[in-house]
């Protein structure tokens, strides 16, 4: 893949277009909603505040679907059935949040941090958020777009690949599987957002270790240091 030092006129225009996308206020509202809803911060609140919480909205079954002392494939099947509502609800809300521009808002807010903190160009923001929160394949598709449009050079791609690879889709996956482990976290007094924080540290570390590796050990690629 060719390394870019200077972007062409056409590419600069395309970049300006992407950066100029207007974020309307529903996007920011959606983003705040997403953070509050899935963070677990409102779990213990009753009344109006408690509405803005994923586990509260999920509620309880009112009966033990799995019964006692099951094992093997059948037990596994009944068990995953207890998670079906969790995934359905999580993605239903995520789709709305995305549709209102929540991801775009997230990306806009992250842009100033991406270059110094990770060493990747600002417009990886959407691929970054999508691949982490929504779907691995969605993030991959957006990243491939960037590569096809030559908006990312080889070094930056390596760093971004490391970010994407480690714990890919982990927030999305962790939310849809929350039914499995969240009761234990809640019993220990630990909000979901704490685990998300650790996942964030994981991914940022992965990107920066790769950044270090590329800058120090990778002799083959030339071009601007990321």
């Amino acid at each position, binding site marked *: *893949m060719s390394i870019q030092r200077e972007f062409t006129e056409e590419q600069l225009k395309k970049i300006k277009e992407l950066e100029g996308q207007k974020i309307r206020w529903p996007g920011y509202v959606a983003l705040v909603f997403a953070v509050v809803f899935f963070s677990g911060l409102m779990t213990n609140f009753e009344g109006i505040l408690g509405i803005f919480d994923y586990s509260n909205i999920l509620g309880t079954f009112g009966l033990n679907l799995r019964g006692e002392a099951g094992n*093997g494939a059948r037990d*596994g099947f009944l*068990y*995953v059935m207890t*998670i079906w509502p969790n995934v*359905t609800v999580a*993605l239903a809300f995520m789709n709305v949040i995305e549709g*209102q521009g929540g991801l775009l808002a997230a990306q806009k807010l992250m842009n100033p941090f991406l270059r110094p903190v990770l060493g990747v160009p600002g417009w990886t923001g959407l691929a970054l958020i999508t691949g982490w929160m929504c779907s691995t394949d969605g993030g991959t598709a957006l990243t491939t777009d960037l590569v096809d449009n030559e908006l990312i050079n080889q070094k930056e791609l390596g760093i971004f690949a490391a970010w994407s*690879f480690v714990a890919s889709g982990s927030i999305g996956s962790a939310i849809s599987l929350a039914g499995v482990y969240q009761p234990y976290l809640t019993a220990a007094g630990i909000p979901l957002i704490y685990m998300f924080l650790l996942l964030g540290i994981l991914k940022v570390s992965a990107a920066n270790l790769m950044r270090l590796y590329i800058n120090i050990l990778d002799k083959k690629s030339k071009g601007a240091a990321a």
Partner: protein
Amino acid sequence: MDTKQWAPKGNILDDFLNGGRKGFYNALFNQTPAFVMAFILIKVLNMSGLMAILGNVLSPIMGLFGLAGETGIVLITSWLSTPGAIAMMPALVEQGLLTGSQIAYFIPMCYAIGQQLQWLGRILAPIRCPSRYYAPIMIIGWILLPLIGWLGFALTSLLF
């Protein structure tokens, strides 16, 4: 089935329903097979006696992170399928081998080295990441495994 048809379009009601369809499809065709596989694995390990043996073998390693030896099996499973690994956790909790506060940092550990082969094909190859970066990226996951384990162990003990 092409899940792209359920992509968000801006209409809140439609997006909600389509998101639900996406989620349910995911639950049915991705998570269900993964969970069933995990439970089969657990049963095979229990029936063959391998669970106890592996638990003893991995005990010193997992002990470094304040975890029971049996969690090592969950970690190994995560390398193949992280949802499968997470599916195994309640069984360990019921047996008193895993606690809520351990889960808080054990899950990130599982994600650190999770599904590496799968991501190679689903992420690195399609984005045309140079193949000489494949090994370093995978190794980084393994380097971060103990690091996030210790950080998580320390931080969780401190805060909760």
